[in-house]
């Protein structure tokens, strides 16, 4: 949580809370949790102690859950599915978005379909995907692709559509042809928006994979946490959740860094369409 803007300005710098307060609260919470668990105030099945979770993490890394399927495999399988679906979505959404954004009639034509498809909850397609493609990998990858596709598409379309008309007119007055305007004006101007859409899409894909993996597989982080519940291993579920959170955080941080590296002139685009 970056503290950028001013909070209430009537509170001076002298009363700014010390930096150790946040980490201190976290440490205190963990100690209290451990203490309450050791004192027997917490039912271990509902709230396993932090020390127990540390043991579980070691077990997941060494033995795996189910036995033989280590944490590395779960993470690798999940990330692999996301990567495939995400790549497919981007490969389709960028050309489609450029076309729809550049041709106004096409934009109008596609509007109702795009609006409706974006409103369809991706996971509601899960039963249909299973009926069509079975419970295997294809269904999962296609659902991730669906979830990511519309977010990327909407942002590429918006990026091209709302290119500053002044830029286009300036290029035209410099005798640039339509192809030149598209390639050298519209495309670079739409890039930041498109990239922001791709960043949000990865988050959406990550959210979706967890749900998708809860059906018909034992590999992957989503499968891990649901499978653990049926074996009454809530400790495995909690460790799995933490790993999911860390993976999501790592992915979004990575893309943010990449964005800053590739588009150094455009920082912090706020208006991203979901």
């Amino acid at each position, binding site marked *: *949580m970056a*503290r*950028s*803007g*001013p*909070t*209430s*300005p*009537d*509170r001076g710098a002298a*009363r700014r*809370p*010390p930096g150790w307060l*946040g*980490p201190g*609260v*976290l440490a205190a919470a963990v100690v209290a949790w451990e203490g309450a668990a050791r004192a027997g105030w917490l039912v271990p099945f*509902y709230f396993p102690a932090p020390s127990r979770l540390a043991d579980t993490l070691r077990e997941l890394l060494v033995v795996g859950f189910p036995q033989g399927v280590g944490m590395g495999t779960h993470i690798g399988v999940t990330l692999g599915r996301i990567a495939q679906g995400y790549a497919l979505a981007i490969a389709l959404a960028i050309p489609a978005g450029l076309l729809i954004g550049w041709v106004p*009639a096409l934009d*109008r*034509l596609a*509007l*109702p*379909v795009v*609006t*409706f498809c974006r*409103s*369809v*909850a991706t*996971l*509601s*397609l899960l*039963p*249909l995907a*299973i*009926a*069509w493609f079975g419970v295997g990998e294809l269904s999962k990858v296609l659902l991730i692709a669906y979830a990511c596709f519309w977010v990327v598409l909407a942002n590429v379309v918006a990026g091209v559509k709302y290119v500053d008309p002044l830029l286009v007119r300036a290029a035209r007055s410099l005798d640039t042809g339509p192809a030149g305007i598209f390639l050298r004006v519209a495309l670079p101007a739409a890039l930041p928006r498109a990239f922001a859409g791709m960043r949000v899409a990865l988050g959406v894909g990550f*959210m979706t994979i*967890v*749900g998708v993996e*809860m*059906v018909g597989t034992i590999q992957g*982080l*989503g499968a891990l*946490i*649901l499978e*653990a*519940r049926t074996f009454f291993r*809530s400790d495995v*579920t*909690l460790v*799995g*959740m*933490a790993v*999911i959170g*860390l993976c*999501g*955080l790592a992915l*979004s941080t990575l893309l943010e860094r990449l964005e800053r590296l590739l588009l150094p002139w455009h920082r912090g685009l706020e208006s991203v369409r*979901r």
Partner: protein
Amino acid sequence: MSGRRRGDVWLSVAGAAGVILAWEAVARSGAVSPAVFPPPSVALGGSLHRLSPGELGQHVGASLLRIGWGFGIGAGLGVVLGIALGWYRWLAALVGPLVELVRPIPPLAWIPMAIVWFGLGEPSKVFVIFLGAFFPVFTNAYKGMTSIDPVLLRAAQTMGLAGPRLLFQVAIPAAMPDLATGIRVGWGLSFAVVIAAELIAADRGMGFMIMRAREFGDVGVIVFGILLIGTTNLVTDYAIGGVIRRRLGRWHPI
């Protein structure tokens, strides 16, 4: 201008009609079995024949009731905490890290623990929807509160406003557009979450409806359910957007 706009509407209608007609034509051409890829007319007609209006209403009602509870509690708490943490620094320093720690975990990942803590009944679903609504609303409310133009606050202070009056009469109205964004994102996420929760464990609701249809191999009902879910989401989102626009005025882009 109005002539052009009317042309735009016709193009959009043509686009929607074209997709539906193409779907109907492909499905009827016999290239794919209609049991696997039913034409829209058959999916709709067959489903309405199989599901009584009462049953249908029960599924839609169950889903909306769950969202109503989860979103109501989540958005309410998100607004209050977002504003409070955005206004009081010590509170942000105290509670902020805890929220940030939990935030990266997707709401759907809480489903197994929700079942452990609350059982298979309604509270576990409401809890997961609560999480889906809380984080976008909280994050946007907090962002809105911390990015208020400081000139606005200083001007109000110069005119003698302080404390709660500064908060309620200047700061919160200034943060409204961000709050509205959070509420719409939170609603959309709540919708996605309830369907997922109903797929995994439920005995009624729209997600349950399509998952049961899959067990019976009834693709028509699945297709109908998907269209029903999309329509319900679209209509409710549009209604919320309308309320926000009326309260905030048309000039705030959301």
